Structures are given as C-alpha cells and as structure tokens.
C-alpha cells in the first residue's frame, strides 16, 4: 500500500499555508521585529519525537511511518492591547523532519477584540473557546480540537469564529459563538495527521454562579452537528474543587452512518492542592464508546479488510472496496471523537519546586474498559523569569488489543521551550 491510500483527507483547510523551508528564518525575523512593538510576545520551539511500531491498526506498517517520526515547530505569539481594543497572533511553522522539506505555517490564534470591564467582549478571528471544567475531557466543548488526553498541556489551535460575550451581572454571563468548528486531533506524526473541512457551527453558553455553584449551560449545533446540549457544574467542598461536565449528543462521532444516535458523555473530577503538590482526578464516561464485543468486531474488521485489500488473488474491485472500508475504519481513532471505549480515568500529580525552579509531574490515563494505560511523566524547568522548558515522555501500556495500544506509536518524547519577552 502506498501513501495515496493512507486514511488522510485530501481537502486542505484554509488556515494552513504550505510554504518552503526558508520561511522559517523569515518567520523568526518577523516575529522578532514585531516583538519590539508588542505588549507580550513569545518565541519558542517544540519538538515531538515519536517511535513508531506495528499494531493491530498499523499492521505491517501500513501507514508507512518511519521508525522515528519527528515533528519540529518554531512557535511565536504576540499580544497587543490599546484601551479596550486588543489583538493576538499565535502561530507555528512545522516541519516533519526526515519526511519532507515542506514547512507548514499554522495559526493557532489570530484575532482582534473589543473588551470592557463590564463583561462585554467582541472577538473576531481565529480563537480558542477553551471552555468546560474538565481537566482532560471536555464533552461540552466541541468546537475546536480536543486536548491531548496524554498531555493536556500541549497547545491546541483555535477556530475561525466571531464571539460575543455579555454579562448582565457579576453572577451571569452569556457567550455566543458562530464559527467554523474543527475537532480533528492534532500533533499527530506523518500520515496520521488529519486535515478535515471545517463545519459551520453555532454555540450558545450561559454561565451562572448560584449559591457558590458554577453552572454553565451550553448548546452547540451546526451543519455537521445536529445538536449538543451540555451542563457544566463546579463547586468547592472543603479543600476540594469538584466539577462535573456532561453533554447529550445527537449524531454519532464514531460512526458517520448513524446520524440519529443519541448518547451521553460525562466527565467528573476533583482538584486538591496541599502545599506544593497538586492532585487532580477525573472519570470520563463516553456513551458512544464501543463495548468489548463491538471493539473486537472493529479490530477484526480492520484485519479482515486489510488482508483482503492486499490479497493478489482477489479481483481489483473487491480489493479496492476492502481498502476503502479499511480506510474508513482506520481513520476513526484520529478523527473527531473523544475515545473509542466507554470508561476512562485520569490522575495527575504535580509537585512544584522539587528543586529550585523545577516542577515534576506525572499523568496517568487509564482505559478502564480494556486496562490500557498511558503514562506521561514530565519535568518543567524555568531557569529565569523569561524561559520555560517542558519535557514530557508518553509511554503506552496494555495488551495488544487495548485501545491505547492500537496507536502505531511505541512512545513519544515531547520537548517544548518558550522565551517570553
């Protein structure tokens, strides 16, 4: 199988420009020059290193991944405020080193806004909503790419949108967003990277503070989404900050052939912060997730279709049909969904000042339905007030048939450095 048959959408989204390699130093120069005039500015580098492997999904390396896939980025952001007006641009140039010389420029955010202290906000451009109280999973936030469950600290891009906020009082606020939702996963290497068409979507969110309880009601609907009604609750109980975020969805995110499916997702958790230690736990129920039998059917179907697609004894139309079916199934884990199974849990421990300016953290993500585990130990080091460095290692554990072990990645190293001017 060659690269043409990889499960990759052919449509190019408007926000990604293809430019040549020499644009990286030009981008750096422009960012450097603009920095002098900005209120806040950052320059950084990110390097995501993936060790690939054959799995049930990537049998015989059907994705054509190199043994080591590398994703290198030069990042920059600028923020400027003048009175009630403000603007922000945040972008990165990315190269999949060893794969191609092509550099892709992606804007994470690029917007202008008008904001006042009485709660009014009008923001136009590429932006993030980042709402929802969940630490790892945000079932009410389905406008932009979800956080990486293995490392929620990595930055995700926003969407092209217009946002209007109004606060009738200090305890009530309404947010309206109209934009081009894009929820495919990001930060994936090589042929796993997804490029999908944005979908026109509208969202309405009312946020209230009633008797010391945060309540947010969300409704999202659009051209590709029939409807999503979400409720988000937050409250402090003694030393614990508790949250529960839930949404009822109409239309499957896993199976495009089931647009009328209705299902529920719930994320609930707690945050505790004794001294220099921060502990967070969260449980996630994914109502549209597969049960054990469905998941076995899914992996067997992958295997069967791939076998048929590469069987020279079968007539070409049969092989093509099998390949098409395999492509659809193989794309599911990387497309717009929050997981293939039903029950998940996460725990994150962060210890600040382990040594001077050094923070250590450990995140564990468990697929409770199949006992797969992703461990992400990491270090954050800030040698000066301007520099922040992060190093995270993503390790996958579990049986070969566990969801997390489907990923054609043995382990990953994610290094980020940011200089704030």
């Amino acid at each position, binding site marked *: 199988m060659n690269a043409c048959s990889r499960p990759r959408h052919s449509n190019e989204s408007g926000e990604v420009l293809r430019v040549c390699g020499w644009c990286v130093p030009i981008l750096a120069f422009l960012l450097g020059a603009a920095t002098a005039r900005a209120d806040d500015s950052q320059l950084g580098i990110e390097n995501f290193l993936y060790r690939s492997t054959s799995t049930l999904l990537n049998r015989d390396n059907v994705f054509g991944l190199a043994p080591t896939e590398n994703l290198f980025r030069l990042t920059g952001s600028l923020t400027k405020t003048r009175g009630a007006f403000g603007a922000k641009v945040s972008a990165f140039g990315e190269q999949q080193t060893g794969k191609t010389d092509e550099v892709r420029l992606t804007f994470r955010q690029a917007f202008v806004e008008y904001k006042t*202290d009485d709660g009014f906000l009008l923001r136009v451009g590429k932006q993030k909503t980042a709402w929802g109280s969940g630490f790892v999973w945000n079932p009410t936030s389905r406008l932009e790419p979800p956080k990486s469950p293995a490392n929620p600290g990595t930055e995700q891009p926003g969407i092209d949108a217009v946002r209007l906020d109004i*606060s009738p009082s*200090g305890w009530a606020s309404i947010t309206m967003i109209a934009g081009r939702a894009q929820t495919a996963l990001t930060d994936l290497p090589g042929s796993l990277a997804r490029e999908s068409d944005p979908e026109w979507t509208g969202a309405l969110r009312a946020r209230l503070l009633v008797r010391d309880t945060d309540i947010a009601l969300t409704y999202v609907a659009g051209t590709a989404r029939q409807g999503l009604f979400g409720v988000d609750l937050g409250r402090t109980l003694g030393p614990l900050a508790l949250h529960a975020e839930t949404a009822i969805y109409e239309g499957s995110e896993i199976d495009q052939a089931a647009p009328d499916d209705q299902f529920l997702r719930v994320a609930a958790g707690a945050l505790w912060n004794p001294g220099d230690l921060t502990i967070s736990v969260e449980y996630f129920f994914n109502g549209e997730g597969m049960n054990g039998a469905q998941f076995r059917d899914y992996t067997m179907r992958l295997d069967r279709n791939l076998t048929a697609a590469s069987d020279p004894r079968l007539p070409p139309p049969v092989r093509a049909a099998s390949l098409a079916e395999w492509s659809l199934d193989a794309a599911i884990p990387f497309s717009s969904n929050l997981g293939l199974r039903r029950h998940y849990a996460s725990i994150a421990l962060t210890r600040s000042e382990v040594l001077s300016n050094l923070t250590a953290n450990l995140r564990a993500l468990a697929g409770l339905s199949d006992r797969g585990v992703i461990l992400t130990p990491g270090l954050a080091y800030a040698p000066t007030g301007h520099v922040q460095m992060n190093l995270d290692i993503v390790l996958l554990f579990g049986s070969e048939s566990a969801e997390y072990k489907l990923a054609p990645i043995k382990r990953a190293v994610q290094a980020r450095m940011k200089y704030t001017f």
Partner: protein
Amino acid sequence: MRTALASLCLLVFVTAGASALGQTGAMNEATRILEKAQAAVLGETAAYTLRMTVNRSGKSPRVVTMDGFKAGDDRGLVRYTDPPKEKGTVYLRRDDNTYIYLPAAEKVARVGPKQTFGGGDFNNGDIFRLSLTRDYDATLAGEEKIDGVACDVLELKARNRGVAYDRVRYLVRKDGTFFPCIAEYFTISGKKLKVMKSDQVEVIGGRKRPTRLLMENALETGASTELKFLKIDDHPKLDERMFSPASLERER
C-alpha cells in the same frame, strides 16, 4: 424567706446580666479594633500593585509582581504582571469562591480557600478573605509590647470550619493608628502554623500604613513569604462584573 429568695434570684440575674454585658462589651470593643485594623492597610475598595517574594531555604527567592483589585469584603482579583513567564495568571475571589486562570493551560479552575496563594506561605483566604470580622469572633485578651509599642491582643475564633485558620492571635497597635503588628495562626489543637508581621510603615496612596506583610511558616524552617505594597489607590472605579468567573474566561 420568700423575699430573701427573690433578692437572691435578682442578684444572680443582675450579676449574670452584667457579666454577659461586660463580655459583649469586650467583644464589641475587640470587633471595633479589628475593623479599624483591617481598614488600616486597605480600604473598602482598592487597586494596588504588590510584589510577592517567596523564600525557601536553599533555593533562590521567587519574586512575582501583581496588580490587585478589591471591592468590599468578598470581591478580589489579582493579576500577575511579572515575571514574563507567569504574566497573565489571575486569581479571583467572589464570595466564598476562588478561581485561578492559568494562561499556559488557557484554563479557569476553581481552587480551595485554604490552598496556597502563588506557591507562597499566604493562602487564598489570607489574600482575599479580608473581612476577619465576618469570619471570626474577636475578644480582647490583654496587652503586649512589640518593639516598644503597646498593642491590644485580640483572640479570634473561627465561626465555621470553612475559613483558613481555626484560631488567630492578632495584635493591633494601641497608639491610635490601629496598625496590625503581628498575627499568629493556629490549628484547632493549638499548633502554631504561621506568623505574619506587618511593618515598614510608609506613606502610600496618600496616607500612612504598613506596606509590608511578612508571613513566616512555623512548620518549615526558613520558609517565608513577603508581600510588599508598591502602589495603592483607595478610590478606584471598579465594575462589579470584573469580579466574575466569566471574566476570567475572556482572558487571553
């Protein structure tokens, strides 16, 4: 006999009443002193600039500068302005709810009142719960001299367990300034947790007041956190809606 009994009852009633009135009087006086002591540093509303220095033995001090806003006893907002890597972090207090906005994570999270503020020795309750009179019952418990200055000793007992400390021993200058001198914080079992000193009286924002609060951690040798007021405006115009969790979601 009946007259004697009636006289005895009257005596007991009057004595008990007088004693109760005396206690109430002492409590009222203590509350009055406490109210004045609180207003001695920051008024009802305030906009201020603060520098926080966190000291830990064997580690270099961590210095954070922040802009703060206070509206009444239950609205507070603090925004980090330096160092650059922490700039944009915001703490918000509204009634009994405390939130933090972390720009790196682009996330608003709730935090508990007893959690430490900015990784130092003050907790969120110390910074934002500025109304001790609302959370504690105060009684006068004598007099002490601190650096040659006579101070009233106030005993503060928590009205409920949700507040940051169970008991506070609070010393206020008797020289008419009502400047707080020292506050000692205890657990319910009497274990001393922290000691806060207020000093460096300077003219700032048009009037004299203590400009430094030093919190020493009694449980960790060499651990302390200093808050130094650099600028105070006692009469800022603040919109109530800036103290809302939704306002944090509009940060960028």
